[in-house]
């Protein structure tokens, strides 16, 4: 199977597919070069000491490899997916709480997820990143603090009013399509 061409709108999706289907270590090395430093940085900004953050960044990347079959490009960008793994690792590290997850959707990751859904999701993710980057510094830093765990859930209320737009998500897309079909 020829790998899908890497496109700007879906960075690293092709590498994830290569890892999933062919256990491709070169694709993994590309993901590692991009994401491991970012995961380490994320954990350090969340208050983790550098040495521990380095080890945990490795754990997160091993999880990316081990759980590649669960990645669904029509529901999350690679960055989003890596973020959720890093976040869960941080929760383990800090509190050893259990992390209740929502019930999985009936449709689950499909081998042939609709190409349209993937493109739309990846584009919207890109737009969200651009919206974040174009915020005034103070507002952007406030949002970053939320994700680094520097703000309590009460303080987060000040942030959620910011004009960021949202991902439509596969669920909303599916509902939209349904309405179109019925309309």
């Amino acid at each position, binding site marked *: 199977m020829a790998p899908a061409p890497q496109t700007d709108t879906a960075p690293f999706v092709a590498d994830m597919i290569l890892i999933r289907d062919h256990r491709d270590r070169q694709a993994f090395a590309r993901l590692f070069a991009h994401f491991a430093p970012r995961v380490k940085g994320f954990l350090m900004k969340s208050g983790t000491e550098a040495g521990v953050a380095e080890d945990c960044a490795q754990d997160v990347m091993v999880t990316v490899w081990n759980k590649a079959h669960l990645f669904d490009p029509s529901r999350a960008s690679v960055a989003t997916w890596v*973020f959720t793994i890093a976040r869960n690792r941080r929760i383990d590290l800090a509190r050893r709480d259990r992390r209740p997850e929502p019930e999985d959707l009936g449709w689950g990751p499909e081998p042939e997820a609709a190409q349209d859904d993937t493109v739309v999701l990846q584009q919207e993710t890109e737009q969200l990143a651009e919206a974040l980057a174009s915020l005034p510094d103070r507002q952007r830093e406030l949002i970053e603090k939320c994700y680094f765990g520097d703000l309590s859930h009460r303080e987060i209320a000040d942030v959620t009013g910011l004009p960021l737009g949202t991902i439509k998500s596969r669920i909303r897309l599916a509902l939209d399509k349904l309405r179109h079909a019925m309309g």
Partner: protein
Amino acid sequence: MPWGDGMTIKHHLTENLLMGYAAGTLPEAFNLVVASHVSMCDTCRAALESYEALGGAVLESRGVDLADDGLAACLARLDDAPVADRPAPVRPVPGALPAPLRDYIGGDIDAIRWRPVGGGVKQAILPTSDAASARLLFIPAGAAVPDHGHRGMELTMVLQGAFADETDHFGRGDVEIADEELEHTPVADIGADCICLAATDAPLRFRSLIPRLLQPFLKI
């Protein structure tokens, strides 16, 4: 899907609760309410996915240097076994309660170990970290939970039946978010016994003496 389209849900999670869940900064008991509600509510699931995407964008923004041998050390830990051999995610069997909650109970409604708290009201404490507490509440049809206020934030999600208080009416899947401002007396609808999941980050404040005296024993 066991829960239908969630279109009947009127009272949703707030954006800050969804963002806190996405960021991983909520107490475990609140996470349980968010995960349970999102299991039933497509609107909040879509919003949650947006907040996780925002987390991805924050992660993307910049990194720090790694140790020189980082990649080699990581490659040495990879297992080449094909992922096809790994178990696919198991879709939870439909139940009366959302799957994340069933995990905490160790079963569905019939597995809940209720303790009476007076007036026919029963509760079951769920094991979570101390930052906030979670419990299931059983309110017999037509009965009331004693009038109480809140020191912190209390989330109450309806799992079966419905209740009404001074503010509104709450049906299956709805979440009432109460804070210091709200003093209320939830009353279950006549039609059916009401079961709720309640989480709070501070002890409740009862107005009358008897529930207040019982509070240490009830752990609420």
